């Protein structure tokens, strides 16, 4: 997956100012950055649901959003997007049909996301973390080759987060490419590469080791602060 000169305007302002990004196949790439930096917008462009002003986005060798990609890309929106009035099972069965996956796939993603105890429960009665796992489960159906996950671990306890990152690791081991946004810095250690996005510009695109070496910081959190504070002000930025 790669983008070249990607510019996106949302409302009155330009939110991505020419983003060049490469996500190598089979890797887990973490998308980090301050709130409002454009992470969700970038992910929407990759999935092909965002109107873009300029630049190109190529996914699995095709332009983003191409009909041929729709069953090969899994997408989890930042806010859980499932049907609250349906049970976990009914939600997953519907999305499985849509993605061209069979019934066994439903059981498999239920196991992967630890929702076995909730299959008969209505989605509107799930806890916040369970709901976001259901949203994730729906995106795993149909064995997508690229997974675009917008903050999939928000609201989860450390055990669940570890389990999910183990799952992401297994998926990438099986050849799946993952683009995962996150606010939790210790999750960065589980990524093959890290991309720092601030005010619509890529501040860094490196491995964790490379990032620490370049900034001389002891951990991601400090490297992040170092980069954010010492970067030149962005285009059109008139101070906070």
């Amino acid at each position: 997956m790669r983008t070249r000169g990607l510019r996106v305007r949302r409302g009155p302002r330009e939110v991505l100012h020419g983003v060049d990004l490469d996500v190598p196949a089979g890797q887990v790439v973490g998308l980090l950055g301050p709130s409002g930096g454009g992470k969700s917008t970038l992910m929407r462009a990759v999935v092909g649901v965002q109107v873009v002003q300029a630049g190109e986005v190529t996914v699995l060798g095709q332009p983003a959003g191409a009909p041929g990609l729709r069953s090969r890309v899994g997408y989890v929106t930042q806010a859980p997007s499932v049907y609250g009035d349906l049970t976990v099972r009914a939600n997953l069965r519907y999305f499985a049909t849509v993605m061209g996956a069979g019934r066994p796939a439903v059981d498999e993603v239920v196991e992967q996301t630890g929702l076995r105890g909730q299959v008969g429960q209505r989605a509107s009665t799930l806890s916040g973390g369970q709901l976001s796992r259901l949203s994730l489960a729906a995106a795993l159906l149909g064995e997508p080759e690229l997974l675009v996950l917008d903050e999939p671990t928000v609201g989860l306890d450390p055990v669940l987060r570890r389990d999910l990152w183990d799952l992401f690791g297994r998926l990438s081991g099986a050849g799946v490419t993952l683009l995962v946004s996150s606010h939790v810095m210790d999750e960065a250690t589980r990524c093959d590469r890290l991309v720092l996005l601030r005010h619509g510009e890529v501040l860094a695109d490196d491995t964790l080791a490379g990032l620490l070496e370049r900034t001389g910081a002891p951990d991601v959190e400090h490297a992040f602060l170092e980069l954010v504070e010492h970067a030149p002000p962005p285009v059109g930025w008139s101070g906070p």
Partner: protein
Amino acid sequence: MTPRLTLATALRVVQQLRADHRTVALLLLLPCVLIGLLAWVFDGGPVFDRIGPALLGVFPFTVMFVVTSITTLRERTSGTLERLLATPLGKGDFLGGYAVAFGMVAVAQAGIATAFAIGVCGLQVAGSPWALVGVAAASALVGNALGLFASAFARTEFQAVQFMPAFVLPQFLLCGLIVPRDQMPAVLEAVSHVLPLSYAVDAMNAVSRSADGGAEALADVALLAAFALGALTLGALTLRRRTP
């Protein structure tokens, strides 16, 4: 459009409805209550026989307009539409699924309301009661398609509810239920010719007044179908895979 995906979507919509007992009860029983009330008000006399059938065409239109505009708006705001449009699901499958699911609800609703009007309230109908159900279903489909289209212009459910009086009430006033259309001022009569509800009421009247009104009603139903198709096409244009 893929029949399998259209049907899966219809099934999903029906499952959602089934989970909401109160809405189902309102959908199926409210028309009966209102028709019963009307029969009572006019004491089952000739006025009831005149406007009863027309009303059987107005209910499904109104109810389906509201139900569809709210449910599709919910899909738009909850993110499920964005998710679906990023999958192989076609826009036609999405729209068709809703049309099939609500079409079935409309047939059930019309069947119950017609049976109640004729059996309990003693409504006199010259033509076949089945023709009344058929016209009601066509009327529901138009309400369905228009609701879908209208939902694209609402940001909130509150706005969507306000569209009901905006889209439906003018049609209600001009459809010939209150004053026969040929007795209205020329301008209003001309306007009534381009409003779908007028044809639903015409068809209902044709069926209820003479035993051989079927052919006339069929022409009106064909027009209703054309309206539904037009509105569905406009609705499809408002379903964008890419949004700003």
